[in-house]
């Protein structure tokens, strides 16, 4: 490529992804402003000062991105967030299985819940043989039981394993 040639689509910086978090910031600041509009000034001082500063900084960033796009040096592609595509299903599986764990932990208890979550995640991510998956899940669950239940006596949900162990010892 010659020095004077305009950058091709592959050479352009993908700056569309840079606007996702600022968009969330604008939405959140807007919601914050709405939630404090009827309150006394003491209750909304922080929201107004910090929210205004946040919006001003976001405006600067948007202007910077748009200027670069207009100059042809960048695109509004979301590539940094969606590439590499091969790991996206795994990422969704991690989030989905963790969500399922939170829903089920009141019934399963922390020990069995962690055993199943670790095992399921390892299986989905292709961590190797079943023996290895079972051993790792078992160690995680046993460590969590010893630290959180036996040693620190935290109020994490108790399920069949905890009840069985409490009845045995």
């Amino acid at each position: 490529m010659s020095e004077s040639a305009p950058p091709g689509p592959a050479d352009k910086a993908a700056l569309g992804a840079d606007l996702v978090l600022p968009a969330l910031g604008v939405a959140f600041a807007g919601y914050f402003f709405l939630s404090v509009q009827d309150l006394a000034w003491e209750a909304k001082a922080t929201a107004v000062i910090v929210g205004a500063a946040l919006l001003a900084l976001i405006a600067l960033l948007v202007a910077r991105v748009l200027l670069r796009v207009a100059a042809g040096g960048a695109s509004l592609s979301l590539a940094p967030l969606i590439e590499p595509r091969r790991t996206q299903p795994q990422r969704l599986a991690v989030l989905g299985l963790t969500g399922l764990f939170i829903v089920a932990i009141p019934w399963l208890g922390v020990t069995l819940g962690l055993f199943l979550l670790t095992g399921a995640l390892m299986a989905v991510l292709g961590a190797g043989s079943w023996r290895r998956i079972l051993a790792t899940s078992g160690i995680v669950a046993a460590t969590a039981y010893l630290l959180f239940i036996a040693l620190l006596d935290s109020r994490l949900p108790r399920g069949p394993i905890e009840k069985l162990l409490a009845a045995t010892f």
Partner: protein
Amino acid sequence: MGWDPGFLLELVGTSFGYWWIIVPAVVLGVIVGAVPGFNAQNTLIILLPLTLTMAVDKALIFMTSLYCATHLGGGIPAILVNIPGTGGAAATTLDGYQMARKGQAQQALVLCFTSSVFGGLITSIATVALLPWLAQIGYVVRSVEMVVVMLFGLTLIAVVAAQDTLKGLIAGMFGLLIGAIGTDHIYSAPRATFGFLELLDGVPLVPALIGLFAISEALVLLDEEMVVRREAQGRASRANWADTIEGLKWSLKGWWQIVWTGFVGLIIGIVPGAGASIASFVAYQQSRMFSKTPELYGTGHPAGVLAPESANNGVTSGTLVPLMAIGVPGGSTAAVMMIVLQYHGVVLGPRLFVENPVLAYGVFVSMVVAYVFMIFTILPLARYMARVTLVATSTLVPIIAACTIVGAFADREYLFDMWLALAFGVLGYLARKTNFHVTAMLIGIIIGPLFEQYLVRALRLSQGDLGVLFSSTLGNVLWGFLVLSLLLPYLRRRRGAKAVAEESTG
């Protein structure tokens, strides 16, 4: 009571006699410090039934030893998997994790341990000697100065941690706004709670820390084979005792860095509310500013581990100074300690040093002894801990996700907090992938409630006049530093670009 070396030596001897309390407390402290979600504060709350039944001197030795050890433990996951065990270890991720990626996890851990121990040791000794004078610092800083200190800290983080200052500032301000969720301090009116009762007290820090660092890191790690880069895997797998020795040599070479950044931590720790998370970043930034090789910071530079870890541990003695000297806890852990001391009928404040000098000075002497025990307990383990970086991500990611999501429950014991950690995980993932630094966001969330408290206090005193923020000499000096810290990197970059342009034309 004046400076009496004989009395202090006797205290040191007595503290060594309590090794059977200190060693278990150190081991427990390192473990809970390394588990995101657990920290000295919530562990001490869980262990209140134990400490309340102990004799007051033994309880105090146990609590201070555990407290110091958690500050050291927080650096371990920060280096190995880019997840700070505590907020104070967030700055350690900048260079510690980069060293691990280069196959130098063992050296980074040794740097972390030695700087933590010697930073803590030196500042504890200094505190014993300078206690009456140090206690005065807390009086000088008022609400106006605190507002500027916090904004200064946030700006430093944006400038230091983020590759792009504008993005760093946006992340910090976003965090500050998230930190303002919940009821306000004057009228208890709910703000931006999305209708969740669980958010009335504000955004809990532990799920935010776990989500922004642990869950998001797990999601990012899926793109990698393991923590160590492919080209460094051979070196990391051959790690041996020589690497520990090398880490010790690097620590020895940076002894002066450990000393002065430890004092940065001590002074910031004395200011109530400022805390380890700000201290470690200020130390990191100062260390980079005075370095002959500032460009190496952020790429896996040993000094980038020494500075924040030493400051992080300098804070431990600092936060106890206002507690012992004026009866005002310098942080949340100090507040838990105050509860135990008051339960035992100990009246904190200046008279404590006259009426019960053994207890008053004993706190800091037991810190010295705990740090001595710590180095011998933890240093030999660096070699084995470093192996974590060689675990395949298909195994590491499930372990991180499973263990840390449970940690999100630990602080307030709400299932809601696990969902919150998951939500922050997605937010952190978006931030990491687009180079909005999650550390700036986390620090914003941490200081958000305190920032609001001091801001509203200052504004109420001035009847709503924003000019009050520029009304104090100390505050104005800090404003000056804040502006300088924003301008200096820009000017330095511009000068560099100009020099390059002159070279190419000349």
